[in-house]
């Protein structure tokens, strides 16, 4: 099976604190994997490590065939991270933000307008400074960046937060469409029901390690999980 993520005993530090303390994770191409765990368990750190934004100090970390321990930058252009922050510039309007992000990552600028239209960002919204948009609208602009870039690996950290019901549903559709195009998705979410419906597999993170894995066909029961040694 084509591995997109392969982490073995991955250790990452925030200062001197190990935010990943020997994490093992394998994700195959086309999978949708849900990371679950308590606050501070290491879900965001694991996603950031997969994106090459958090340096893996020890262990193995391969993403899309690139060794992140040797070169964390190698894989970034092929990854999209939709997280707590939007990475948008407040003084730029929505379309300029999306256009810059797409240009910067070497993507096709022709994808900008269709992506924004898909997210309902049309008319005056495109020309409005991001600083003047609501939190939900900003999230939609950030999502338009992700859609326009169309990366091979989607890393989603609480992706449904801040979106209204209509756009939460749309996000789920976009994720499924991305997987249909061959992308792989790893998401962390506290919206258990919605995320479990979306994911094919659930990975439990605790204390900076992957503590359990299970298929997500039914709500996870502690005794049903296959514990990782």
């Amino acid at each position, binding site marked *: 099976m084509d591995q997109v993520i392969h982490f073995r005993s991955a250790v990452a530090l925030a200062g001197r604190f190990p935010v990943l303390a020997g994490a093992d994770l394998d994700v195959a191409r086309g999978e949708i994997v849900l990371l679950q765990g308590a606050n501070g368990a290491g879900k965001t750190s694991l996603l950031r490590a997969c994106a090459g934004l958090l340096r893996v100090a020890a262990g193995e970390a391969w993403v899309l065939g690139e060794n992140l321990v040797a070169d964390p930058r190698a894989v970034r*252009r092929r990854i999209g991270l939709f997280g707590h922050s939007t990475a948008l*510039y407040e003084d730029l309007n929505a379309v300029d933000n999306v256009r810059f992000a797409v240009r910067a990552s070497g993507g096709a600028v022709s994808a900008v307008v269709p992506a924004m239209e898909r997210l309902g960002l049309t008319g005056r919204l495109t020309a409005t400074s991001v600083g003047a948009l609501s939190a939900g609208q900003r999230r939609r602009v950030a999502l338009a960046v992700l859609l326009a870039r169309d990366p091979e690996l989607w890393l989603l950290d609480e992706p449904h937060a801040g979106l209204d019901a209509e756009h939460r549903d749309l996000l789920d559709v976009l994720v499924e469409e991305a997987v249909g195009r061959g992308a792989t998705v790893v998401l962390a979410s506290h919206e258990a029901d919605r995320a479990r419906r979306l994911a094919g597999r659930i990975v439990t993170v605790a204390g900076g390690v992957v503590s359990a894995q299970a298929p997500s066909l039914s709500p996870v029961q502690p005794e049903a999980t296959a514990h990782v040694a």
Partner: protein
Amino acid sequence: MWRDAVVVGGKDLRVEMHSRVTTTQVAPYAILVLLLFGFAFDQNHAILSQAAPGLFWMAVLLCSMLAVQRSFALEAADGARDGLRLSGLDPAGIFLGKAAAVALQLVILEVVLGLGIAVLFGTTFHNPALLVLSAAAATVGLASAGTLYGMVAAGLRVRETLLPLLILPVVAPVLLGATQAWMAALGLTTADGWRWLTLLVSFAAIYVTFGVLSFSVLVEEA
């Protein structure tokens, strides 16, 4: 690298065009500095005319702090720096783009301040070639050193107060060289201004090279 520099520089200038911080805040600040110098010297034209190059470059130096701080404040907000890193842009391109955007803003300020010293201090320009070339070299030096140290301070909570402490001692040669070159260009001294231009060009070349080579480490560690 050059393509990435154009993308980043274009973005920073577009942000500036939208926010107009340079035109509505930094430029008035620079003019205010010149006016206050004028008041401090009791509007003595002889002293002001003699001190004009030093006052001009001191004002430019202070404004360059603001421009650099603004340039990196953009990246600190709402995870923009992570977005920049995740885009896979060449760090050398990021450096050149941000330095070019700062330099362009400084050029605009220098034109405004140049008019300011001509009007307020009665300064006349004798050697335009030396004046323009030394201004260009000093601007590149200030922008490149500022961008380099701006990135060093970017990840720190105390970046606003730390940045001037880091930059001001480093750019002292620019202040000295540009002031001396301009004194020669304005006919205020008989010293050879072209020698000072050599210092400015050397400073700019060193910091542009150093920035291009080291920015990848700084972007990752910030």
